[in-house]
């Protein structure tokens, strides 16, 4: 038996860690590489209806405690993306991330991802740096309900909704996902943030605002998953600042059935492999026979 296997509803993953959307997932070659380096699944870059170049550089800033980025949802468009998916889906579980500006457009994109043989679709309801998309939609429970309902009516594959921490009502939004028939909630996306250059007296990012990721985000994400676990029945996927197996276990024990890794991949492309090994050792030492036995362990 594979102790690292986990389930997100009906979707079985042989390993609980996925590559988060936006990291090494824009091309077929990148996704295949990540699957070969220990990922249980790869979530694609968020794909929209048409080609989008994203924001002009600077789009990225490094801190000792994480990264600030405002890529601006660059993507080749859903039709062009067919080619990238073709080989990737043969190599393992690929979850298609999509962003849109209406429920109808979300549904259309999800249908395309289903025809490309994505194992599930992840709705990006949480990008903090693209006008008209992301958190501008994902902080309204009524709209989230409409989006998830429209997608659920359009596809048979599982529908995951990725939520933003830039709200005080994350559990209400989670409930809207659940009430609409959503199969899982992914939390969290990046925290809206900005940086100013003292010398140039101007924001560094060309978009002014971006999203903070990395270690600084972890306690925020763990709290979100803990609250969501108390509020929801559907599976949860934890994401935000996971760098090693102990970070991943925090999310699992808070209530996540699986987790995603993003920022940590930049400095160590093998990080998921190491997390898998760390999980196995930890589970042996502390007597957990499966990932599922650890899920929610921090709740009473």
């Amino acid at each position, binding site marked *: 038996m594979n102790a690292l296997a986990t389930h997100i509803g009906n979707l079985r993953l042989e390993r609980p860690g996925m590559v988060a959307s936006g990291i*090494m997932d824009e091309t077929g070659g990148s996704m295949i590489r990540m699957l070969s380096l220990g990922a249980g699944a790869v979530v694609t870059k968020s794909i929209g209806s048409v*080609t*989008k170049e*994203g924001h002009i550089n600077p789009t*990225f800033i490094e801190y000792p405690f994480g990264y600030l980025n405002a890529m601006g949802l660059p993507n080749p468009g859903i039709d062009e993306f067919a080619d990238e998916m073709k080989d990737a889906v043969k190599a393992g579980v690929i979850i298609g991330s999509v962003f849109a500006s209406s429920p109808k457009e979300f549904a259309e994109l999800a249908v395309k991802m289903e025809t490309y043989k994505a194992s599930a679709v992840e709705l990006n309801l949480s990008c903090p740096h693209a006008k008209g998309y992301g958190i501008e939609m994902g902080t309204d429970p009524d709209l989230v309900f409409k989006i998830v309902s429209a997608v659920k009516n359009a596809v048979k594959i599982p529908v995951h909704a990725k939520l933003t921490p830039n709200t005080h009502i994350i559990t209400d939004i989670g409930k809207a996902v659940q009430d609409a028939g959503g199969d899982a909630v992914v939390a969290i996306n990046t925290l809206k943030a900005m940086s100013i250059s003292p010398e140039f007296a*101007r924001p560094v990012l060309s978009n002014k605002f971006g999203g903070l990721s990395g270690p600084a985000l972890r306690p925020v994400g763990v709290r979100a998953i803990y609250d969501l676990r108390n509020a929801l029945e559907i599976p949860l996927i934890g994401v935000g600042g996971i760098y090693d197996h102990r970070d991943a276990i925090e999310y699992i024990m808070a209530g996540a059935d699986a987790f995603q890794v993003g920022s940590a991949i*930049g400095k160590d492309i093998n990080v998921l492999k190491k997390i898998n090994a760390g999980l196995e050792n930890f589970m042996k030492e502390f007597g957990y026979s499966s990932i599922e036995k650890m899920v929610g362990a921090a709740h009473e």
Partner: protein
Amino acid sequence: MNNVVKITSVKRESHDTRTFRFTFDKDAKAGQFVMVWVPGIDEIPMSLSSVRGKKSITVKAIGDATNAINKLEKGNYIGIRGPYGNGFSVEKSKNILIVGGGVGVAALMPLVRMTGSDTIIGARNKAEIIMKSDIERYSENVWVSTDDGSYGFKGNAVDLMKKKMKEKEYDLIVACGPEIMLYYVHKACTDASVDCQLSLERFMKCGAGLCGSCVMDGMRICEDGPVFNSEEITELKELGRFKRSPSGKKVKL
């Protein structure tokens, strides 16, 4: 962190190419690059043309950002983050031939200083030759090729390289320059069973191994490269054939 540095000197290398020196207190290796921010214009990857003491970048005015940089003067400021990438590793090699094409010569300058190896400068014509006298201070053998024959060997840098490889035994070729040149450097090295290290280039956003915008066949130019060896290059099927636009779209070269 994004560091802002003051330009301490500007040196004219040719009619459209300049070297900008600045103080940047971070350890850097030959072959690494930095992300250079010109406020209001862009942020672009640039190889370091010196890595010890004061750092420098050497910029040919081609696009918006490089034109803006080339107008900067001593005392002006630019944003720098990095250094990024793996850099060259030449410790095991005895007889190295360094081959630079165009402004690619600049990225090899730290290696020239470090090793004093034989060096080929490839240029379109006499006016495009850069850093020749600098290189001659370190290397005994410096050869120049120009496409139009206005200086030195008439032909391209790869033809001159092949000629030199017949005259002398090299165990490593290190090259930086236009992609089509690198494609043929690799081919010539494979044919001659000589190892090579090539410094590649792609459009970049993060520069730090995360966003995937610079990947070639799943390999990140910024973090797995920019320097790749002969074996790795063989696996890069997109080299010389495809690149990615800022949207990630595959574009024929």
